[in-house]
């Protein structure tokens, strides 16, 4: 039974941990991201629009962002390139730190360790030649430092001055990938978003809050998996327990007969048996939780983690954060302990109502 609790607990813990981490990451995302569309497909946005957004009450900042992906053929991998401007403040503090590390007058970019490794393998040590849209090469120097921040999503990350990024993506001077808008009062995000929508008819506007809800829902859908696990757990409980307890052996029967002969009532026997069940289940529950915690946070979730990570190409050896959600604990408790006790009710009762005199012949 401990194993079962541990199993379910682990899955839930991993889920919670990732949810928590995602939520944390989300916090650094901009409140609103505005991008342009043409025929409902993505299109670059005009960065002068940012000035219009700033006129809206409540908008504290509107930064045009330049970022995208670059396909490195030789290594068969896509790099994520983020362009940073020397004087711009991003909502993401990590990016701000990286921005300070760039040097803006030389042609230089910062690589994440993975990018560095793969470029190195292809003999690009001090510089790299980007192939531009028009076929020409753009040589960019590789910084000695590398990005040493553990974050799940940005494994093939390159950070460079905005202008360089523009060149690589062949953006015109006023083109940007999207515009990140910050709203002073978080309660007003939705409202500001509507105002922006009014300004730009066919833009796509993503709100941070929606992302959170969407993600929650995704996790809950994954709970479809959980439902299956639950059901299996459910049946297993009953099977194990019934098997164990039904069919009292004669030794046990004799003992109960003795107890009744010396004055124990049916209730007394029942109570004892049920307490026994309670203690066992509480113990298993605690043990299961501890095991799950060890498995999730020290051994990093192993196989079960992949249930979640399969849909996005994500790293595996990133340590999961320690995150304890009381609600999850309560949930696990409600599944395990009542079920166990429930399964012991009938067997305990059968034991308690054994006919004492028959047993002692």
């Amino acid at each position, binding site marked *: 039974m401990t194993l079962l609790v541990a199993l379910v607990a682990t899955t839930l813990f991993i889920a919670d941990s990732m949810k928590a981490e995602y939520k944390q990451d989300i916090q650094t995302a901009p409140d609103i991201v505005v991008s342009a569309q043409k025929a409902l497909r993505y299109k670059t946005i005009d960065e002068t629009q940012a000035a219009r957004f700033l006129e809206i009450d409540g908008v504290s900042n509107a930064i045009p962002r330049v970022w995208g992906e670059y396909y490195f053929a030789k290594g068969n991998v896509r790099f994520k390139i983020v362009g940073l401007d020397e004087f711009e403040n991003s909502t993401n503090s990590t990016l701000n730190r990286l921005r300070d590390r760039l040097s803006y007058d030389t042609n230089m970019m910062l690589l994440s360790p993975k990018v560095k490794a793969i470029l190195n393998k292809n003999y690009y040590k001090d510089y790299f030649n980007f192939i531009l849209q028009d076929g020409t090469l753009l040589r960019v120097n590789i910084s000695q430092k590398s990005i040493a921040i553990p974050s799940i999503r940005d494994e093939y990350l390159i950070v460079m001055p905005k202008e360089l990024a523009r060149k690589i993506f062949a953006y015109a001077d006023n083109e940007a990938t999207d515009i990140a808008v910050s709203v002073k009062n978080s309660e007003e995000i939705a409202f500001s978003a509507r105002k922006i929508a009014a300004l730009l008819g066919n833009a796509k506007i993503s709100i941070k809050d929606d992302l959170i809800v969407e993600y929650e829902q995704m996790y809950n859908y994954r709970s479809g998996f959980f439902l299956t696990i639950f059901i299996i757990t459910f049946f297993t409980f009953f099977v194990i327990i019934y098997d164990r307890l039904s069919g009292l052996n004669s030794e046990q029967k004799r003992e109960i007969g003795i107890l009744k*002969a010396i*004055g124990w009532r049916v209730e007394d026997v029942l109570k004892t048996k049920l307490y026994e069940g309670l203690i066992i289940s509480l113990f298993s529950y605690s043990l299961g939780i501890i095991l799950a915690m060890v498995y999730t946070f020290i051994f990093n979730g192993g196989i079960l983690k992949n249930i979640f990570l399969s849909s996005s190409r994500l790293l595996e050896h990133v340590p999961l954060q320690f995150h304890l959600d009381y609600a999850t604990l309560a949930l696990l408790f409600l599944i395990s302990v009542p079920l166990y006790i429930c399964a012991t009710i009938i067997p305990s009762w059968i034991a308690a109502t054994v006919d004492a005199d028959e047993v002692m012949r």
Partner: protein
Amino acid sequence: MIELKNVVKKYANGVVAIEDLSLKLNRGELIVLKGVSGSGKSTILSLIAGLSKPSSGDIVVDDKHISKLPDHFAAAFRRDNIGFIFQKYNLISSLSVAENILLPLYPLNLPKEELEPRLQEVLNSLSIEDKRDRKVKDLSGGEQQRVAIARASINNPNIILADEPTANLDEKLSLAFIKMLEGLKASNRTVVVATHDPLFFDLESVDRVIEIRDGKVV
């Protein structure tokens, strides 16, 4: 006072253990129920203790119609008024002496201060205080016998019932046992012994010998 009135006991498998039996036992008496195995004497003890209910007839113990009581109350009555000594002692071997003796009182959840003096008294009266924490399975036959008696007397019962108590004992131990039973009788308790051990039949302290055969008084 114990009274059985026209009691019939039929088991589920059709066996008639007791047939129209009437009996009256007075307080402070030492009664021997004499009969071979299967004669029904053990059943009579069960009925007196309220462990089983008669198929018909009435059983009155100390003015209580225990045959009509639901298990709940019959068991409580048994706990408070009756001490049972079994043929094979029926102690719980994995528990210690003290635990076995206190077993009848467990459900009452009495505080330690109350239990301790009673336990001491009983241990002393049977000279087994030094064995108090030993596991029962480590004791000799004679010692186990004494624990059994201790358990039967911890609740200060008015009635002691013993079912073939000397069946597994040699003569020396049997006589020691009889002495202890007499001691119990001396404190004005009713003692009923069901046995076919002839040692009991000629004792001075025995008030009556009732012979049971095929579920009827002879």
